[in-house]
């Protein structure tokens, strides 16, 4: 009994010391999370939820649901009040003369390593998980633009939606924002070129 009591007391001490150290490590880490931030505007709980990676191509939207991923994504975007844009319109916007003038902009909502590996040529990066780093640059660009196309990986990726909501909440009119649900995966699979490295690096890579 005495030993059990001591073991529990020891566990409590480990928990308290561990928690304090963990909070300190998170605060010191350059990749640390902000405790008070909302990284999932529009709901902290998952809405796309788990996708089982099975051998089947039928991605699951919600555990227990047989709804295809695409249908769930569209429904979710509608619920969040976001405009959706498909592959053909994205192509049109990319070739729109206003793209060169910065009146149509593409926003890549993925993290730095994915962005550097290949993004829509000329797209700006907005990793909303580190909004404080990107928002001061991205916000004026979006406010100045007539249309902003936001994308991430595609499929189950929701980062483009969160980035769009964050931009909307920061003052960008809703009708300017378009979420490209196919994302970079669809862009590449459609045979379109990507820019590697930083924006306007000039390193354009086409699909072999």
């Amino acid at each position: 009994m005495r030993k059990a009591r001591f073991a529990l007391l020891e566990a409590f001490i480990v928990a308290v010391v561990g928690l304090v150290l963990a909070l300190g490590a998170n605060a010191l880490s350059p990749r640390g999370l902000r405790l008070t931030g909302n990284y999932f505007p529009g709901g902290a709980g998952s809405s796309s939820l788990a996708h089982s990676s099975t051998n089947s191509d039928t991605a699951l939207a919600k555990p227990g649901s047989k709804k295809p991923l695409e249908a769930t994504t569209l429904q979710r975007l509608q619920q969040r009040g976001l405009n959706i844009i498909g592959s053909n319109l994205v192509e049109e916007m990319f070739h729109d003369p206003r793209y060169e003038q910065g009146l149509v902009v593409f926003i890549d909502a993925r993290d730095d390593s994915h962005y550097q590996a290949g993004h829509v040529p000329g797209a700006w990066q907005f990793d909303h998980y580190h909004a404080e780093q990107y928002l001061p640059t991205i916000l004026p660009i979006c406010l100045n633009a007539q249309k902003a196309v936001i994308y991430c990986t595609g499929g189950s990726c929701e980062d483009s939606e969160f980035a769009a909501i964050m931009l909307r909440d920061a003052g960008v009119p809703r009708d300017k924002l378009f979420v490209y649900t196919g994302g970079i995966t669809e862009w590449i699979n459609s045979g379109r070129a990507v820019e590697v490295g930083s924006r306007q690096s000039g390193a354009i890579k086409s699909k072999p």
Partner: protein
Amino acid sequence: MANLLPILARFSLGALFIYMGLNKALHPVEFLKLLREYDVLHTPFLLNLVASTLPWFEAFCGALLILGAAVRGTSVMLLAMLIPFTVLVLLRALAMHEGSGLPFCAIKFDCGCGAGEVRICHKLAENILLATLSAGLIFSRRPRLCLRHSLFLKDNE
């Protein structure tokens, strides 16, 4: 051999928890997204708190085990993390199994454990083994190669 078992258990558990913990701590955003998929923490603060502290806490527990400090208390904490986490993983896998109609053991997903995508049956077996080792360390009476096996009791107690 019996003398070596607690040491092996400590070192293997410790190394695994350090590896898994640091893997997540170095990619906190990825872990945050995976944690959200469980749909059990509904406020941003709680979600952020767990995602930012749990990986470091796991690494801390792993370090304590390897050092042989507060071994019983640390093992209790490991059990306190492993049991609810295993239940959550199981429930999620059951929901996926029900939704897809696929054999249970064919269900594969990234559970946020720090080792990427895993087959559910492997994960469950692994967690049961880890929980058994942790429980074994709580009752272990052979403190060898320990900095301070217990914070309160002497080594021979």
